[in-house]
């Protein structure tokens, strides 16, 4: 009987090993382990054995069955893997074929630049505030220490609706309106459209965008202004950017300055881009003039403030090396799509 079992086992192992696919393997399973299979037949023959022999023989049969089952299972896994590999091989695709994309549009380069500026200042606690584009002369000029007939009014080439209402030439009126509300301390930037009567050419447009920033608090200093704008410049134009502050004049700030950044193309060595100087003029800034604070009912003895203003188009032109401002307002798809 033992020999018979050994024989079955060997026969089974051989047949399993020779099965080339899952179907044949199943045949083997039925033949050896099925109800009518050889092992079942062997068990049936147990009735011919003595009481003592039976358990031992039963155990032997089970061991044989287990061995066959284990081998069967192992072989099954191998065959399955083989079949999967074959299937996958047939499913090969050309991965270099073009992608199927959903057609996403592009952001305007000015928006890209604006988002950068907004990100930087939002992170420093500046809220983004907007205001009217058609503005009262008072907010655009007078409240900013530019009284009637001040030459600065001519400098800014204002579009007038009537003697009291203008197209704003700067976004500073938003700052005045916000300061008037009296919630201090205040940190804000006001981006938006502004208008000046410049003829359209490669570097001028009668309609463009400005971002003006303002902080009002106790103990705000010119040093804080420098530090803040240096941080902005490094974030905006790269970690190695250096800044230079030059005294300047704006009616609404005192002291005032203009900030240059080291040319981000040549790193400050001087190139065609920065006209050889190594520096690029970026923005105007200063400590808010006490007259302006007074007009907004803020006590300049208690509070101080700094403000800065930067032209969005200028940043976009510089950052993306666009050589003609007019491209920004033509909205040619081939231009816009470059900013995806």
């Amino acid at each position, binding site marked *: 009987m033992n020999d018979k079992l050994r024989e079955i086992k060997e026969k089974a192992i051989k047949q399993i090993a020779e099965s080339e696919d899952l179907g044949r393997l199943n045949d083997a399973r039925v033949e050896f382990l099925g109800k009518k299979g050889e092992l079942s037949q062997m068990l049936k023959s147990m009735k011919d054995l003595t009481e003592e022999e039976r358990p031992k023989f039963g155990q032997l049969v089970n061991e044989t069955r287990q061995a066959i089952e284990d081998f069967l299972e192992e072989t099954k896994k191998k065959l399955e893997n083989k079949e999967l590999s074959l299937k996958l091989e047939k499913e090969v695709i050309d991965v270099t074929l073009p992608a199927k994309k959903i057609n996403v549009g592009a*952001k305007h380069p000015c928006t890209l630049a604006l988002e950068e500026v907004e990100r930087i200042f939002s992170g420093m606690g500046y809220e983004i505030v907007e205001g009217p584009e058609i503005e009262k002369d008072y907010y655009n000029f007078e409240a900013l220490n530019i009284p009637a007939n001040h030459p600065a009014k001519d400098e800014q080439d204002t579009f007038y609706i009537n003697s009291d209402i203008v197209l704003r030439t700067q976004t500073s009126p938003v700052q005045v309106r916000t300061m008037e509300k009296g919630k201090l301390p205040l940190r804000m930037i006001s981006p938006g459209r502004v208008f000046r009567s410049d003829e359209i050419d490669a570097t001028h447009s009668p309609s463009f965008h400005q971002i003006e920033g303002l902080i009002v608090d106790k103990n705000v200093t010119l040093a804080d202004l420098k530090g803040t704008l240096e941080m902005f410049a490094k974030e905006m134009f790269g970690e190695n950017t250096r800044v230079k502050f030059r005294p300047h004049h704006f009616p609404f700030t005192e002291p005032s300055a203009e900030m240059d950044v080291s040319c981000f193309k040549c790193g400050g060595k001087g190139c065609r881009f920065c006209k050889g100087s190594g520096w690029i003029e970026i923005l105007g800034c200063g400590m808010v003039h006490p007259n302006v604070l007074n007009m907004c009912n803020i006590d300049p003895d208690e509070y101080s403030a700094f403000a800065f203003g930067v032209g969005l188009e200028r940043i976009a032109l510089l950052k993306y090396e666009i050589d003609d401002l007019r491209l920004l307002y033509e909205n040619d798809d081939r231009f816009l799509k470059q900013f995806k």
Partner: protein
Amino acid sequence: MNTSLNWIKEYVPGLNCSAQEYTDKMTLSGTKVEGFECAADNLDKIVVGKILSIDKHPDADKLVICKVDIGKGEPIQIVTGAPNVVVNALVPVVLDGGRVAGDHDGHKTPGGIEIKAGELRGVMSNGMMCSIEELGSSKDYYPEAPDNGIYIFDEDVEVGSDAIKALGLDDVTHEYEITSNRVDCYATIGIAIEAAATFDKEFKMPEIKETGNSENASDYISVEVKDNKLCSRYIARVVKNVKIGPSPKWMQRRLKGVGIRPINNIVDITNYVMEEFGQPMHAYDLSTVEDNKIVVRTADNGEKFTTLDGQEHELTNDILMICDGKKPIGIAGIMGGENSMITDSVKTVLFEAACFDGTNIRLSSKKLGMRTDASGKFEKGLDPNTALLAINRACQLMEELDAGEVVGGMVDVYPNVRTGNEVKFEPEKINKLLGTDVSKEDMIKYFEKVFLTYDAATGMIKVPSWRQDIHCMADLAEEVARFYGYDKIPMTLPGGESTMGGKNKSQIVRDKAKNAARFNGFSEAMCFSFESPKVFDKLCIDAADPIRNAITILNPLGEDYSIMRTLSLEGILTSLSLNYAHRNKAVALYEMAKVYLPKELPLKELPEERMKLTLGMYGMGDFFEMKGAVEDILNECGVRANLKYEAVKDIPYLHPGRAAKIFAGNVELGLIGELHPQVAGNYDIKEKVYIAVLDMDDIVKLSDYDIKYQGLAKFPAITRDLSLLTEKSVLAGDIEACIRRNGGEYLEKVELFDVYEGDRIAEGFKSLAYSVSFRALDKTLEDSIVNKQMDIIINELKALGAQLRQ
């Protein structure tokens, strides 16, 4: 504003720096130098030579051979074709290896032209005698130069000496951007004070001597100023026995250094003084001044006057005039009259140095369309105290130049003497504003450099009257900052209470809308806010439509930019048109920008500005893709109310059968549609254009991101298909609304999954197939409940004209 560096050095003798150093340091201390030009940049090895002999060239009729003494060694031989050489002439000679700026026609060569010894028609030439043009200048500045030929010195200069220096070409002209607060810097003296302070050198004021004979000017002239506001000071002095002639070379060279051509001694003196002190002056021929009287008054409306350039002007009563006893003789601060101008026969000159109101001069000059050197200075608002220095300086120069006999005394009408400001000196406050720790003593030192003096007794800083920009502590702080050095001020970050930065709700919703538009394939456009009034015709808008009531700009760049838009379409359509013309195949654009709606015209208060999201596309998609984009955008914007579309036929710029108003609940949010082919034609687009305009202000009001989680369904849904047959005119939107209305409490979803029009159904009909799902959250629905609800729906649909399809 330009200065000559040599002129500056006259007042700051210790100044010793290169043109570039000067530029950099002056800019950092607040006097912004825009650029500079060195006259001698391309000139090298040029000396004064003396022509010893002139011989004919053996082989060329037009050339001669000169022996020229160049001050050392043997005389050199130079061959020249110049027609004006004569023996003993002193001429500029460029030596072998030297450089000149250009050719004798005045064309300059970048980097100059190198001159080398060589043979000319077989005769050796060891250099070149130069014309003034070859030296980079012109007869304009050197009137003694010949029209054609070598420059010949008409004064005694040392043979062998530097000709560049002898001609005053060793100068540097700096150009500045002077800010409107620093009127004092529109003068060489003002810049020199800044230069002395910047380089920490001594400033030397030119000495102005008393001049004049024993007579008194008041015997020659009287002055009456009728408007002391418009003319705060008027000084008159008289010079008799005037001899008109050229001014001396030194004065001509100074004027050349700032770009002014010499004319004659009187004009040159007034120009010189104007550059030096920033004070314009005027000279009248006293013999033309009737009644020996000057009256300063405003003109009469309609009064006519001819200025010395021969132009006649019609005046208005806000223009200030200088008149004699009978008639106007000059427009104050702008230009003198033809009737009183200096001619070569002048005997007695009346000098005027006055101070006119800057704003008035600016407005008058604008009104008359005349901007002169004088008005350019006056309109900045001058210091009346400078007028005295200037007129005395001019008289002194008249005397020194022997141009006439100065009459003693003056007539000076100056009722309200301007004194300098006084500002309290608060060093702690200054340091607190700047974030610095500059000592009080250092501050005082900085102030003194620019003649701001500290009065320890009163604690005040006395500001000279020419510094009209200093009124308060912040102004003093700026003086400290710029002389301490903006670059030395530390860089710190603001401390203080922290603030909540970032965007408000409407900005966030707008960003979401823009992103949704972008992910639907639209690129962002930026267009102008002002446009042409013709836009309304292009959009086929009725002549009486109130949308035509747009705000007009008083001074637009032109009609095409003259109204503030009330509709947002023009920008996008023009941009699409440009793309179409550029043959870009399929383009989708959006713009997020405002329209401007006046509450009344003419405008009395600020208009309503509404933010619009405008979408437009051609060459791709259809109405329903645009609709999909709109719904995606509204969904992103948090519009939760049910959207409704109401077909509209009367939007003039939209296809009457393919246009709808978009509603969320009862709120109208905008328009969607196919552009009317006629309008598309007006924009030269020969394809279907789809547009949508959404009102962001209303969208923001509806925007709601307050989402609450609903438990996931635990019980199965029952879904029934509903195949309907209706006349074409029945709207799918109405059918869906009917199903929803009658769906009962368990209705979960209604979905249109098929629309069919064609052979298999009757003409004029369409088939719509819906899938309708019901679900209860707390139990498994029984068929009977759903059946009952479906019966109700079907029944109601019949009333709408929709039959179950058999």
